[in-house]
């Protein structure tokens, strides 16, 4: 990444370099978004919906997303299912093994807040964001496979706001409706799910104003 950083910083400084950087970014973001290989970190019930999503009826592959169990080949880690205290070090370790840039999709209620296992349990980690930086949350118990596909599409939009240069982001109109968009209450069943980007719905005015934390905020 050091070479890329110095190159992009060099490009920013020369006159006309911004145009080159923008087009390089557009190409890089497009190619990354079109081919997001996922790490199916399926622990519990949501894993069944993750599998169903990859198969013929819902077909994840047409979005370019392919379940690849090896973390070194993947861009996205889809955590599907309850995270227990015994499993947490394994997930953290696999996240660290993924190469940059990497994204995390938290699928299902258990990975958002602990879900149905919030109260009275002694061994459940209440949400993946306790130890991982999550990009997309998908609510549902379990969420429909269409919601997972919607999450991949929203993740693509999130990727388009990022740049190869560190600390630089783009403002783009989100084509998918956020929470306070006029199209939010449509009859499309996928939109009924609380699928939102880290920019909290709405246009990306504060989408990644600081550098994306891809070094992983995992505890030791």
């Amino acid at each position: 990444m050091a070479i890329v950083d110095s190159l992009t910083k060099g490009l920013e400084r020369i006159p006309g370099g911004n145009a080159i950087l923008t087009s390089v970014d557009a190409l890089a973001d497009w190619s990354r978004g079109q081919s997001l290989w996922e790490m199916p970190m399926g622990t519990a019930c949501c894993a069944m919906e993750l599998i169903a999503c990859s198969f013929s009826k819902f077909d994840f592959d047409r979005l370019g997303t392919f379940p690849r169990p090896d973390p070194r080949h993947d861009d996205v880690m889809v955590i599907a299912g309850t995270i227990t205290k015994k499993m947490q070090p394994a997930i953290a370790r696999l996240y660290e093994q993924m190469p940059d840039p990497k994204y995390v999709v938290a699928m299902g209620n258990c990975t958002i807040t602990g879900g149905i296992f919030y109260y009275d349990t002694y061994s459940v980690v209440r949400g993946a964001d306790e130890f991982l930086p999550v990009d997309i949350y998908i609510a549902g118990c379990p969420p429909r496979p269409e919601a997972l596909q919607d999450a991949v599409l929203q993740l693509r939009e999130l990727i388009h706001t990022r740049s190869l240069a560190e600390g630089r982001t783009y403002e783009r109109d989100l084509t998918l409706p956020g929470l306070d968009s006029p199209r939010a209450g449509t009859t499309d069943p996928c939109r009924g799910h609380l699928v939102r980007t880290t920019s909290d719905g709405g246009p990306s005015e504060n989408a990644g104003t600081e550098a994306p934390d891809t070094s992983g905020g995992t505890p030791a």
Partner: protein
Amino acid sequence: MAIEIESRTSLSDESGRGFDELVVNIGPSHPSTHGVCRVIAHLEGEVVVKAEPVIGYLHRGIEKMCENRTYMQIMPLTDRLDYVGSMYANWAYCRALERLADIEVPERAEYIRVIVCELQRIASHMMGVGASGADTGAATAFIYAFEVRERVIELFEELCGARLTYNYVRPGGVSVDLPEGWIERCRAVVQWAPDRLRELDDLFFGNFIAAGRMKGIGVLSAEDAIAWGASGPVARGSGVSFDLRKDDPYSVYPRLDFDIPVGENGDSFDRSRIRLMESIESCGIIEQALEQIEPGPVKASGIPRLIRPRSGDAYDHIESARGSLGVYLVSDGSPRPYRMKVRSPAFCNLQLLSKLAVGHTVSDLVVVLGSLDPVFGEVDR
């Protein structure tokens, strides 16, 4: 697959040749679809000399949670136990509660429960057979099996709105009656499915590669199956013809006519193939139940919102896709159980891995694990 080399020790026999024993850690993030299981395998070359499953990566403390919830609030938790078969997990719990609280279930509800449970058995076995396929490398078999499963799940979605965790079978009956036209659609699926299942049988189990990979692997004898508490297709694959639907009949199963497929050799091939045969039998059971079902109430009347059973305990079990799934409830008269214990068949069957995988290669260990068909929500609770 997270394989990690932990230690290397050198042993040698009398002739002075050295053997290397390798300890390989497989999992808990498993590429196969069985869930979070860790197997610590001691290998000599590629042959397993000792395999020890380590579980507990999905231990959510459901039994402790149940002590602070009312009987109806526990219902959604039972869905998440055996999440590939929520209908019968709900049913086992409801039967134990009905035995404890002396609730009688109307006949239409019993028929609906049987229909729904047998459909769930088909869906669960499709996951099991498909996962066997994925373990041996036949990913296409997995996708073919899922076609049948998706048709069944569509029926469930129409019935109760959910695709995976239904919370449909309730104490005293079921939650809602069958929608209009559901019986015809169910009949259509059940008449279409057996041909598809036989085709899958031919394509996958008739394939000489699948047979070569699964025959003779993980042979379990009948005495061991009984001694080690195996139940379900794992026991029936070894020739032990024990099925709670016939040996301890419950609900309306005595009125339905069906066979229990039993294997001969007790290897992984038999165990997986029995699951497919059982699915075909289930189609027959569902057709008969659809003929016999009569209009009527679907829920017992007079069940209070807060169920306060008598003080005491009760145990009841059903034949789930994995074996005999039992629920033991202890009550002290209050609206919350004092203790709830789930006797999960996958937990009892998984002990066999350390016995069955010895002497086979690492790839066969995965096949054996697949043929035991564990679901870790149930194993770890």
